[in-house]
């Protein structure tokens, strides 16, 4: 059975929320990150409904505490893999809103030059190994990133987000098992929002918790309240430390709820309006954390309002950036298929690639991790 980490709020009455040693500034940073996700997503929805944005878009509203708490537990150089519902992960990992919004609009100034869109948004520079259109596909990939760190003996950790629906895919089993066998530095975070597209998780999962499957791989399985950002942070931090120490992977299940449809346009035949309204009223992670911050005396309503105003302004700037950016032109249709080669895979230059040089032994780790380290630490 999975270990249940009690939501911080349950113990709040006696001791106040557990802050896991985070400074006031970092706590406010968590709040700001959650709001950035919320306001970004709200705006994306509006733009979609106004047909100023298009594609398959899956919103993260309601789940903000998971990405935010989890990414806050990472260090510079650590990497994440994500899912089709990836905006929150991007923001929590420190990606900027403007090139994100531009990417959702298919603009050339987007992170992927408009070639990826919402489902494939990525920034290796930030250690963000990509949203993914294929359920559970990020699991073997993050295991592989962890394998890379392990082979070269460096200290980074990989963190993998996936949905409850993904826990039934073969890639879940193979990816986690391989990581467990080799004790790779990776943390698997299941975002259990209780639905897989058009049906409730119960239809798919013959047991109570996804986390209980940790036992099948001899790794810790932990259930955490996914609307409590501090609880998520605490559970993930423990797992990240464990991974970094060489003790291997963990499986963390964050119980959460998505307030919006599966994708923009979802008629939501599978749940009632009341159910959603109740969840919004009772388990909004931002409302909860706002209350906690006030209770802890870290912030008053005014300060939080200021943060919100600033975030909204950032989102607006991102929208303007996206909308004013040019459409990609035909000249980039056939680029970026191969590195150092044309669209047919033919070498595009006679230059020696870096790989062809002899790399001295002691420079390997440095060279190898350079790319993923180019950017600073993520939010939180």
């Amino acid at each position: 059975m999975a270990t249940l980490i009690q939501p911080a709020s349950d113990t709040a009455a006696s001791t106040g929320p557990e802050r896991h040693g985070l400074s006031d500034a970092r706590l406010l940073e968590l709040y700001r990150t959650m709001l950035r996700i919320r306001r970004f997503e709200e705006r994306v929805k509006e733009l979609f409904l106004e047909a100023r944005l298009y594609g398959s878009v899956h919103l993260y509203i309601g789940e903000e505490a998971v990405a935010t708490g989890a990414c806050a537990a990472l260090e510079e150089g650590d990497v994440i893999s994500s899912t089709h519902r990836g905006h929150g992960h991007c923001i929590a990992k420190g990606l900027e809103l403007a090139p994100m919004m531009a990417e959702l609009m298919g603009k050339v100034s987007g992170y992927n030059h408009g070639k990826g869109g919402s489902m494939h948004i990525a920034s290796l520079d930030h250690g963000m190994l990509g949203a993914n259109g294929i359920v559970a596909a990020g699991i073997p990939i993050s295991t592989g990133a962890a394998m890379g760190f392990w082979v070269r003996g460096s200290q980074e950790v990989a963190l993998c987000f996936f949905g409850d629906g993904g826990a039934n895919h073969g890639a879940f089993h193979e990816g986690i098992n391989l990581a467990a066998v080799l004790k790779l530095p990776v943390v698997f975070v299941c975002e259990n929002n209780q639905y897989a597209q058009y049906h409730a998780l119960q239809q798919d999962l013959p047991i109570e918790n996804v986390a209980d499957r940790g036992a099948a791989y001899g790794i810790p399985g932990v259930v955490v309240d996914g609307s409590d950002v501090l609880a998520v942070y605490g559970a993930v931090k423990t797992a990240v430390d464990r991974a970094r120490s060489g003790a291997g992977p963990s499986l963390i299940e964050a119980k959460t709820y998505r307030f919006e449809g599966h994708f923009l346009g979802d008629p939501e035949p599978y749940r009632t309006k009341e159910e959603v309204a109740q969840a919004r009223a009772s388990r909004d992670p931002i409302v909860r954390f706002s209350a906690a911050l006030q209770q802890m005396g870290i912030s008053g309503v005014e300060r939080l309002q200021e943060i919100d105003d600033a975030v909204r302004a950032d989102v607006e700037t991102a929208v303007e950036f996206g909308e004013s950016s040019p459409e990609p032109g035909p000249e980039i249709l056939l680029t970026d298929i191969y590195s150092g080669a044309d669209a047919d895979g033919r070498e595009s230059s006679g230059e020696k690639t870096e790989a062809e040089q002899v790399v001295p032994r002691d420079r390997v780790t440095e060279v190898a991790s350079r790319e993923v380290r180019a950017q600073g630490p993520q939010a939180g």
Partner: protein
Amino acid sequence: MPEATYSQALNMALREEMRRDERVFCLGEDIKDSTYGVTRGLYDEFGAKRVVGTPISEAAIAGAALGAAAVGMRPVAEFMYMTFMMCAMDQLVNQAAKMKYMFGGKAVLPIVYRTMAGAGRANAAQHTQSLEAWFSHAPGIKVVMPSTAYDAKGLLKTAIRDENPVVFIENKVLYATAKEDVPEDDYTVPFGKAAIRRQGRDVTIIGLQRMGEVALAAADQLAGEGIEAEVIDPRTLVPLDIDTIATSVQKTHRAVLVHEAHERAGFGAELVTQIVTHAFDYLDAPPVRLANPNVPTPFSRTLEELSIPSAAQVAEAVRTLLK
């Protein structure tokens, strides 16, 4: 310069590249005791972190190589038989092949996916499939098919140094039968350069991998009848050296394609298409395609032999073409 088999030559390439660059590492099932000898001895030299044994989990192997490459390593992943890659097509084609493009170019993914294809050893339908056409249909992946020991070493080195996912197809019969002097020093064989294995004026025979031998055997038979066949080994399908092929066909006016994969929608169709596109006006007759018929490989040796193109069939096809 010592004589080496195809499998030994591959082993040399791996060892040399692993010595040269510590980011290069191998992963796969039973690569420590190496069923076909390609990774033999590497575990002893490089240890468990450079020669990583995995569970029987092809999708995880493919994805793990991709993830490791995304953080700066240069993995060489093995799939024991090419057919088993069907368990990993999502990771190979949806993920590895597309990642760079989907990310707007911002990923460098130096991965070699080694595997073994071909029939001829009574392994029946699930251990004989040649899937070069599938991977050729997956932009973002390069496809390599060495047919000699020399090329095996040189192309594998090129594959390891390439900055892209490469599906590197070895051949189960050639492992032991292809044997020649293989230099011990560092050399590479470039991608996208076909080899003319035999010069001739009357017909161009293009044989993929082991079918190159069959083509050469047919050419020998034909030479006795005064027919001079030019035999071309494309060596890599993506990129494809269509120039060499088209130039030859423009000279000979006739083409025969030979491969082991199933005929329908096989790579032979791509070759025919490119040949007619580039040499239509020179052709005296439509290119002829010889392949595994559209049938899963039968177990029985008798039937299996009938399902692989033979030198006699190739020679006969050429005679008919020249009539």
